[in-house]
């Protein structure tokens, strides 16, 4: 069994309303030292496979098909054996 950790985040230059609103709130809450907030999403995926290489390729496909949109997202994949 393998574990894939995928982080999907917005590319630089793409607006992040969630980050923007969180920043605004933190400042209002008195955390005036906070300068920027970016949000991203992580998926931890347990999956079967024969090799790290094969699993990585499958995870790559999973990102392309479902989890990320190359136009606005970038993603990072880490694979480990369980």
């Amino acid at each position, binding site marked *: 069994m393998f574990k894939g950790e995928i982080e999907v985040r917005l590319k630089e230059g793409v607006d992040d309303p969630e980050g923007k*609103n969180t920043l605004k709130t933190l400042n209002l809450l008195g955390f005036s030292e906070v300068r920027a907030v970016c949000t991203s999403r992580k998926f931890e995926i347990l999956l079967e496979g024969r090799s790290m290489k094969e699993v990585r390729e499958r995870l790559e496909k999973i990102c392309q098909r479902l989890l990320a949109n190359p136009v606005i997202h970038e993603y990072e994949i880490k694979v480990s054996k369980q």
Partner: protein
Amino acid sequence: MKKSDMRVAIVRMEGTNCEQELQDAFTVLGVDSKFVHIKQLKELTGFHCVVIPGGFSAGDYVRAGAIFASLIKTKIFKELKEFIKEGYPVLGICNGFQILVEMGFLPGKGRGRACLAPNDSGVYECRPTLVRNENRGKCVFTNKLKRKEIRMMPCAHAEGKIILEEPKKMLSQLKADDQIVFRWVDPDGKLAGYPWNPNGSLDNLAGLCNMEGNVLGLMPHPERSFFRWQHVDWVRKGLSAPGGYNVGDGRAIFESVIECISKKF
């Protein structure tokens, strides 16, 4: 107090979006209400009831209600606490419920903590739902409802599943102290699963009040069944209703609180 002297504060910020229909409900019943932006809210004197409407305060980013709750906490927490202590009613509908729970007003001090987690379905659920009045008389928002009476109040939320930190213990406390106000039921009045329990809430909980009964939080929207023509099946059943022509199931909540204010203050 006369109805014409009552003033209701409807607190809002960017993203609250059920405030107009809420105001309409009070207006129809002859009670004056005022929208107050959380930015401008400095004191509660002059108000006899605070309502936090549904919607997506601050986009519900981070977590439903989290941002609104922390803003209230920094801005007017003490005043609101005092307000509640004096016995004034406070109502949180949907997003408002999430906010009251986030702030710790529900289930209340010394009661353990609760949370409104994402629906089991994982998505937003906008549907007609039924709730049964479980309260034995403590809650000031349901005194116009009969015990075990079933009412239609639609739900519309993505995070409404009530989770208790210590489920067993807290649940029996809540029961013992008459803090359970509404449970989701099916048309036969049974505690059913999805979709009648739209979010997978523990023990079908849909609404809770505090120990004193003057703070109510509920996931369904009584302001969306204030009139009979807001019911999904009014064309089948007609507009005459037990309470009178075009009276919807949610109206009793507003009538109850108005009656409570007029008696108490």
